[in-house]
């Protein structure tokens, strides 16, 4: 093998252009494969850093009421406890209760002069460190959360307030002034953790105590407030939980739900499967298995294109190797020794390409925003993770074998005399094979380009789609704490005097985020109250006007009508369809009002608007006025009540208004940092994962085309060289340079066209599958396929022209003297 590698190295040296093209193509493909492999490895191993991950399951559940089925990743906080008491096969349970469900789960934590907001803060049981694996930096995990006022924090949290100091025993305070003593510091959770947090509060606080009375516990089972995980025995089959769920439901929940026509069931979601497989509401952000398939497919495509390049170039240049092959065969070389020699060359290329690929990955990760694009950090730690280097080496060598096998077998197959006298000028079969390869390359490249363009069209459609309201220049300001909320009428009255502000209202949450869902009651066809699980939200005065929503029946809320507060409801058209109302106005409604429920009537119907992601169709929604009665709110919870001020600002005045508001709120509420966001930005963030996917696929499409063109460049160099005499003759007979280039390119362009047909069909089916995940679709525009084909053809023509124009423009005599 040493001799083979020595010869391979010399061959590489002698044919630098060919070597450079092959190494560039293979190196790019290896680099893309490494990046994709790191990404896929992260996505496919979510939560597997937990030692017990195979035994940890999350309970997901579904409520069926009023004809609808609603799946939740959150359950009642008493569920775990009650299950463990009744079923000995459940070894343990742990809960993560958000301090608020949905967007409001952020906490302002202060230490001396420092105050920062922290997202995803949870109350959790003190056994959490026995079940979930954390790298403990300071503190005792067995006792860290026993004390109700203790808090376990991440390394990032600790550094933010205390630098490199050991923070154990230090005190931080919540927004409500509640002191928390830091009892444990854990290393930041890995990127590929579904449930991320920087703070864990003790569940042993008095105000979190769960009822012990059976009736109260059963009542509590119908609410959802937190994530519940079970620790089961080794080898436990989650299917077995179905029986437990059914028995538990029969004993504890059926008596409550059945009279209302409802039911409940639960199932276990394996911890390491949640990220890609879970499908329930109120979950943390999850991945998408289809994106995994898509990325894996793109990676395979790129490898295929690079291998095709190698095969094509090697077989096309076969005539150059013919003499060497012929001589060796005459001297008595065995066929497999020749195969080994050519494979040795391929392996050498692959090895060099592997080094180039690794260098390229390091450069890209260090100097480009690729990690931000993917939304995760990718670490190519070849020294710290030695098997990674071995894997890359092994993969590259395998790639070399795959790419080099056909050329090796082909080149070694000639009879000695055939090789020696140069009769290896491509047989018809070999020419056809190379054409099939070029066709395949461009079919792949065009399908990836078309897919990118179609995805881009869908994202543009979503961004421009009629949402049913106007998100532009809508500024949302976070208002925290009852004290500030109670001052809002005065604040709004003051702001309304500013002519730059076209309208102000209040909302409970950000449009597009998860809205509260509960069982509400509405008058059915027979006049009785039907129970309906549905989304609902309180709104401030002027909400419809500020959001530019259209009423299709009835009227808006009016502060002048006292009955409108707590007794009037506006529903959307989807709700009217759900209930089958011919005349919705005046229908009875039971809706939340402060801490309780209020009986009212439907006063208006608003045109459907997309209050959730455009992946989902519009669901029924009920809106009612805010009831600003905070008398029942415990002192300890007053700081945690949150609302958003929604302002419609004149477009050209946004910056100035923002500065004014920042100053005003600094005066109104000096204890909280100013928090704001623009609604259109928030909505765009809903589609961040699709945007990233689209950009990545676009980048890989570019890589595909680049590799294909590298190969085309090499092929056309060879073809031009072979046809130099013919070119000279044609020029003598009067052909122009453009005619020469076109002659050389026309075969390839035909292949590009043929590839376009197949590639377009493939892209159509792939994108159609992806679009199925959206309720609102741009549709598949055939112009996209034409555009992708034109791009590929133009790039191919330019490549060939670039390479062959020198010969095409040269003196014919040089060409005729060539041989």
């Amino acid at each position, binding site marked *: 093998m040493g001799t083979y590698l020595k*010869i391979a190295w*010399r*061959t590489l040296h*002698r044919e630098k252009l060919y070597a450079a093209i092959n190494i560039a193509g293979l190196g790019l493909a290896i680099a893309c494969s490494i990046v994709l492999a790191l990404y896929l490895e992260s996505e496919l191993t979510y939560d597997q850093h937990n030692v017990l991950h195979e035994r940890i399951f999350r309970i997901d559940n579904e409520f069926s009421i009023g004809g609808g089925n609603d799946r939740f990743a959150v359950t009642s906080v008493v569920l775990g406890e009650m299950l463990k008491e009744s079923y000995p096969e459940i070894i343990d349970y742990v809960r993560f209760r958000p301090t608020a469900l949905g967007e409001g789960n952020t906490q302002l934590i202060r230490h001396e002069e420092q105050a920062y907001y922290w997202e995803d803060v949870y109350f959790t049981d003190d056994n959490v460190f026995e079940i979930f694996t954390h790298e403990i930096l300071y503190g005792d995990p067995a006792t860290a959360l026993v004390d109700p006022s203790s808090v376990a924090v991440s390394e990032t949290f600790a550094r933010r307030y205390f630098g490199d100091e050991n923070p154990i025993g230090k005190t931080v305070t919540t927004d409500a002034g509640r002191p928390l003593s830091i009892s444990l510091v854990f290393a930041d959770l890995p990127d590929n953790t579904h449930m991320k947090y920087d703070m864990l509060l003790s569940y042993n606080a008095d105000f979190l105590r769960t009822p012990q009375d059976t009736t109260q516990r059963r009542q509590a089972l119908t609410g959802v407030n937190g994530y519940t995980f079970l620790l089961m025995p080794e080898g436990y089959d989650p299917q077995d939980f179905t029986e437990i769920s059914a028995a538990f439901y029969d004993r504890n929940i059926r008596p409550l739900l059945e009279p209302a026509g409802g039911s409940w069931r639960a199932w276990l979601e394996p911890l390491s499967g949640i990220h890609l497989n879970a499908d329930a509401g109120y979950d943390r952000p999850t991945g998408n298995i289809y994106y995994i398939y898509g990325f894996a497919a793109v990676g395979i495509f790129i490898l295929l294109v690079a291998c095709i390049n190698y095969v094509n170039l090697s077989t096309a240049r076969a005539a150059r190797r013919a*003499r*060497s092959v*012929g*001589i*060796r*065969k*005459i*001297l*008595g*070389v*065995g066929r497999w*020794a020749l195969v080994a020699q050519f494979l040795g060359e391929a392996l050498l290329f692959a090895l060099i390409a592997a080094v180039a690929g690794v260098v390229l990955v390091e450069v890209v990760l260090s100097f480009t925003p690729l990690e931000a694009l993917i939304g995760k950090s990718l670490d190519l730690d070849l020294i710290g993770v030695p098997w990674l280097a071995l894997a890359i080496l092994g993969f590259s060598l395998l790639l070399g074998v795959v790419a080099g096998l056909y050329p090796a077998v082909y080149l070694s197959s000639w*009879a*000695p*005399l055939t090789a*020696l006298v140069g009769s290896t000028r491509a047989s018809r079969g070999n020419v056809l094979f190379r054409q099939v390869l070029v066709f395949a390359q461009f079919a792949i490249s065009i399908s990836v380009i078309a897919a990118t363009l179609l995805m881009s069209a869908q994202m543009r459609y979503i961004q421009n789609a009629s949402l049913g309201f106007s998100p532009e220049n809508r500024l949302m300001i976070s208002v925290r704490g009852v004290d500030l909320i109670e001052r809002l009428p005065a604040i709004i009255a003051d702001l309304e005097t500013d002519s730059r502000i076209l309208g102000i209202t209040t909302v409970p949450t950000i449009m597009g985020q998860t809205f509260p869902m509960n069982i509400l009651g509405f008058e059915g066809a027979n006049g009785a109250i039907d129970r309906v699980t549905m989304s609902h939200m309180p709104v401030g005065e002027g909400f419809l006007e500020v959001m530019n929503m259209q009423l299709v029946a009835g009227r808006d809320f009016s502060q002048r009508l006292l009955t409108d507060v707590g007794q009037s409801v506006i529903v959307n058209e989807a709700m009217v369809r759900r209930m089958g109302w011919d005349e919705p106005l005046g229908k009875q409604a039971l809706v939340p009002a402060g801490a309780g429920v209020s009986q009212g009537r439907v006063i208006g119907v608003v045109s459907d608007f997309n209050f959730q992601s455009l992946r989902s169709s519009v669901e029924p929604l009920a809106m009612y006025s805010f009831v600003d009665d905070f008398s029942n709110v415990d002192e300890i919870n007053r700081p945690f009540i949150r609302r958003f001020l929604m302002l419609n600002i004149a477009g050209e005045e946004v910056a100035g208004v923002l500065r004014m508001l920042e100053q005003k709120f600094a005066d109104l509420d000096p204890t909280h940092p100013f928090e704001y966001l623009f609604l259109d930005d928030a909505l765009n963030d809903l589609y961040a994962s699709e945007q990233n996917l689209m950009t990545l696929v676009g980048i890989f499409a570019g890589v595909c085309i680049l590799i294909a063109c590298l190969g085309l460049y090499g092929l056309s160099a060879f073809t031009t060289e072979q046809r130099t005499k013919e070119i000279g003759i044609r020029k003598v007979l009067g052909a122009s340079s453009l005619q020469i280039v076109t002659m050389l390119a026309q075969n390839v362009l035909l292949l590009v066209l043929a590839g376009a047909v197949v590639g377009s069909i493939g892209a159509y089916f792939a994108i159609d599958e992806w679009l199925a995940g959206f309720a609102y679709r741009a549709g598949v525009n055939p112009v996209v396929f034409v555009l992708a084909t034109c791009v590929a053809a133009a790039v191919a023509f330019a490549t060939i022209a670039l390479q062959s124009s020198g010969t095409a423009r040269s003196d014919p005599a040089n060409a005729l003297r060539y041989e």
Partner: protein
Amino acid sequence: MLIETTELTKRFRTELIETTALDKVSLGIDEGQFVSIMGPSGCGKSTLLHILGLIDSPSDGSYRFLGEDVSRYPESKRSQLRKLNIGFIFQSFNLIDELTVYENVELPLLYARVPAGERKQKVDSVLERMDIGHRRDHFPSQLSGGQQQRVAVARAVVNRPKLILADEPTGNLDSANGSEVMRILLRLHEEGASILMVTHSAENAAFSQRTVRMLDGKVIGQDQTVQ
């Protein structure tokens, strides 16, 4: 007898045309003989050389090499016979460009699975004999035509083959180098090698013991050379 052909025929067929390159050639060559084959271009002498060198097979007739009928041998068997018994010298040298002089000459020994120590000894010896040892680490592109042909001769004889086939060995050389190569071949013959040489040159043919004349695929005469 080293070589014996009986009505050896070779036909080449394309889509439209069939060409008879060799037409019932019957020939015998004993061991130790130096024979030239002469004739105009296209007479079939190279085709005959290729068949006798076991790098092509006849369409009809028979060919016995070292007493074995090799006419219908598959390439694998011919390859085996070739590497052990036949050395080739070509008009265009046919050295392998990516190998050094040493490595080119070593190739036949490698394929014959000669142990490394013995290979080194044989290659060094033959390079010295051909007076090309001082260029052992050079590549063919760095040598003159004469030097390349001497390397080719070294490669042809390093394995001490029973038969040396030379196809226009001086065709690409000037007269001085050509004479040098012919003197080498003569010396090899004097040392006992059997040589079959295709040539246009009567002057070169004069180095051999017998000249076979060909025309249109047939042997039209054989002359003993007066030396």
